[in-house]
């Protein structure tokens, strides 16, 4: 018994150390973010639902195990009842109950999947191309619900920001804690409007990459030779900067091609987009003047 007591004490100490360590970085989190899009909120809901279902099952099953382990100890004089070897009734019950639980989970999951795959009626289409090791964003078209307007000349690369890039070198001697948004900042972020369904087309130029921003709730592979699609719609009022990373191993610097999305209001986005396309803007202005 003394071994167990010593180990329990050691485990307690380790637990204390862990909780002390966890307070070190206030931004460290334990759970999936709720996020700022309908898809991310739906994912969070399904995540919590499944988690609680699992916790419920765990309480029952682990409870029965722990009860047996304590109650039926040989050291406490337990006598085995060797007649318990089979029960068709029990087998049927514990086959049917899991099936019912699974169906209950499958219904909302299926609904969720249908919503995710519906990329129709988007207001803005942007193409993201994965390179070793950066992203390229190309604004393709806008749609106001009636007409599709092509966007020309807005295309740029988005790579790891310089401070992080210096600090992350092997033996740089620089402290990552002193770099703001270490490894999660880029030189030119993707800019999108809030309240608009943004369709993101994804492809890879060299190897497979994957595009993911946890707060936006969706991840999809960028595969050479394929064009994948996904959609994001950030709730209005949730404008801000959201950060993610490439999530498909893509070679040496896989860990160093972050994704940053700046979400602006529709007006701010329109202004930003206009500023990005000086040539096109000038041309439009000239046409208007000549009329």
């Amino acid at each position, binding site marked *: 018994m003394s*071994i*167990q007591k010593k*180990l329990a004490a050691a485990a307690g100490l*380790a637990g204390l150390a*862990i909780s002390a*360590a*966890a307070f*070190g970085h206030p*931004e*460290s989190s*334990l*759970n*999936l973010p709720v996020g700022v899009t309908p898809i991310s909120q*739906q994912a969070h809901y*399904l*995540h919590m639902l*499944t*988690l609680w279902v*699992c916790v419920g099952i765990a309480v029952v*099953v682990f409870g029965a*195990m722990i009860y047996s*382990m304590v109650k*039926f*100890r*040989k050291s406490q004089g*337990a006598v*085995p009842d060797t007649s*318990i*070897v*089979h029960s068709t009734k*029990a*087998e049927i019950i514990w086959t049917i109950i899991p099936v019912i639980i*699974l169906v209950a989970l*499958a219904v909302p*999951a*299926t609904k*969720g*999947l*249908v*919503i*995710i*795959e519906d990329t129709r009626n988007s207001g803005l289409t942007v193409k993201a191309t994965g390179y070793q090791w950066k992203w390229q964003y190309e604004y393709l078209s806008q749609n106001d619900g009636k007409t599709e307007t092509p966007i020309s000349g807005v295309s740029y690369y988005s790579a790891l920001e310089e401070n992080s890039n210096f600090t992350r070198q092997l*033996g*740089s001697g620089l402290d*990552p804690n002193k770099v703001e948004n*270490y490894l999660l900042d880029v030189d030119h972020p993707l800019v999108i409007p809030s309240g608009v369904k943004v369709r993101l087309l994804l492809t890879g130029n*060299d*190897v497979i990459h994957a595009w993911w921003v*946890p707060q936006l*709730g*969706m*991840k999809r*592979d960028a595969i050479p*030779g*394929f064009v994948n699609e996904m959609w994001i719609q950030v709730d209005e009022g949730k404008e801000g900067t959201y950060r*993610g990373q490439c*999530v498909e*191993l893509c*070679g040496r610097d896989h*860990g160093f091609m972050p994704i940053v999305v700046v979400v602006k209001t529709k007006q701010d986005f329109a202004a930003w987009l206009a500023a990005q396309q000086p040539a096109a803007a000038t041309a439009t202005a000239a046409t208007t003047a000549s009329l």
Partner: protein
Amino acid sequence: MAHAEAHAHDGHDHDHNHAPAGIGRWLFATNHKDIGTMYLVFALIMFFIGGAMAMVIRLELFKPGLQFVDPGFFNSMTTMHALVMIFGGVMPAWTGLANWMIPLQVGAPDMALPRMNNYSFWILPFAFTLLLLSFFLPGGAPAGGWTLYPPLVLQAGDSFGLTIFAIHMMGISSIMGAINVVVTIMNMRAPGMHLLKMPLFCWTWLITAYLLIATMPVLAGAVTMLLTDHYFGTAFFNPAGGGDPVMFQHIFWFFGHPEVYILILPAFGIVSEVIPTFSRKPLFGYESMVYATGSIAFLSFIVWAHHMFTVGMPLAGQLFFMLSTMLIAVPTGVKVFNWTTTMWRGSISYEPPMLFALAFLFLFTIGGFSGLMLAIAPVDFQYHDTYFVVAHFHYVLVPGAVFAIMAGVYYWLPKWTGHMYDLKLATWHFWLSTISVNVLFFPMHFLGLAGMPRRIPDYNVQFADWNMVASIGGFAFGLSQVMFVWIVLKSVRGGGPKASARVWDDTNSEGLEWTVPSPAPFHTFETPPVIK
């Protein structure tokens, strides 16, 4: 007739307990016990090599910033850690246990194809020498992940050919080992040993062997196509030549998902023997255990694309793979409930094999829960390729498969060596392993949910705390395994009290292996035993 033959052999029985001497005993071994021992020793060495790689990974991830290794080398570490642990550690450990125990459990004198048994073992050291040599070639060891996804894997340096060749050799070895298990079980059971009387370890291994025979050729095909894409200009997976990189993933996971069950089904078998023994009660629902194993094996062939929800499949495809994956929870649940009911109204004692089997029961179930969560496709888009997945598969592989291997070794070690090992030390090994394995892998759930991708050598400071905790757990887990080697060596070298034939005297240990003396003689069951 059979009786007369058995009688004729009795004349020189005394010779049969003399194993051949010298290195030849091992090089030319055809005895299932010797080959089993070699497999187990090989697996143990590989566990330490793969473990050393894991230590490098945890060292680099101890805190943010790159302190020790180049990101390319880090990728080699994650890739090789997986290949060595899966193909060099867990699979050979299972084959070793199968070699030792299946003939003893079905009452056969040896494996059915002893010479092939020798080849299938001796291929492995060469395969892994080639694989590990790739570290010393220009471009270093493979770094594209153990899943070998093209086009990335085709960027490998000179190591590429060696890697593919090594994988082919491992596959051939596995197929031969599997054929041997099938033939032994199908043809060499003692009279009266009906299939539904076999111990569950034989059953789960039989089904595992079919999975191996069905899927290893698929892996061989996939890597051969990679080989010709790389060296001979074919374009199976190159979109520029009309190929399809996603097709590789489909082929790979058609192998890869059954492979997951190849790693875990024999564990179900061991736990199904250890829990009844130390609960002093027969296994509850024996037949439903067999059917559940068969169902899991069948389902494992139709769920592969749940590893690739993010590649952009049509909605119908995603739904199919999501729903079929969720179904696996049903037969797996049946198993867990049967194990629990086996303990119900038993008389339970806590020897090291039972401790490891119980830890398996709890921790594998936790891995099962995260597996169910991952099956829900709309949330998998958040979990996919994060540390949540790393936590999930390490829970099913380490406190799952590896703990079951430990349980099996602690269960049968006295039968092999004739000496009881140090039970107190083994109990220490258990507690240290179980606590540290949770400190190591549980925080990875948090890391993944918070957004840390897998296979990265450096991370934002928001992930620093839990990575440090996981690393501490990792070092502790690694060190605890040194104890295991010490405990086993002590027993092999004859330390500890002599074990009786039944070994666990005062339990419900059933099975033919307990009818032969401890240590099991070099030749056993030359005359088939009588099954009541």
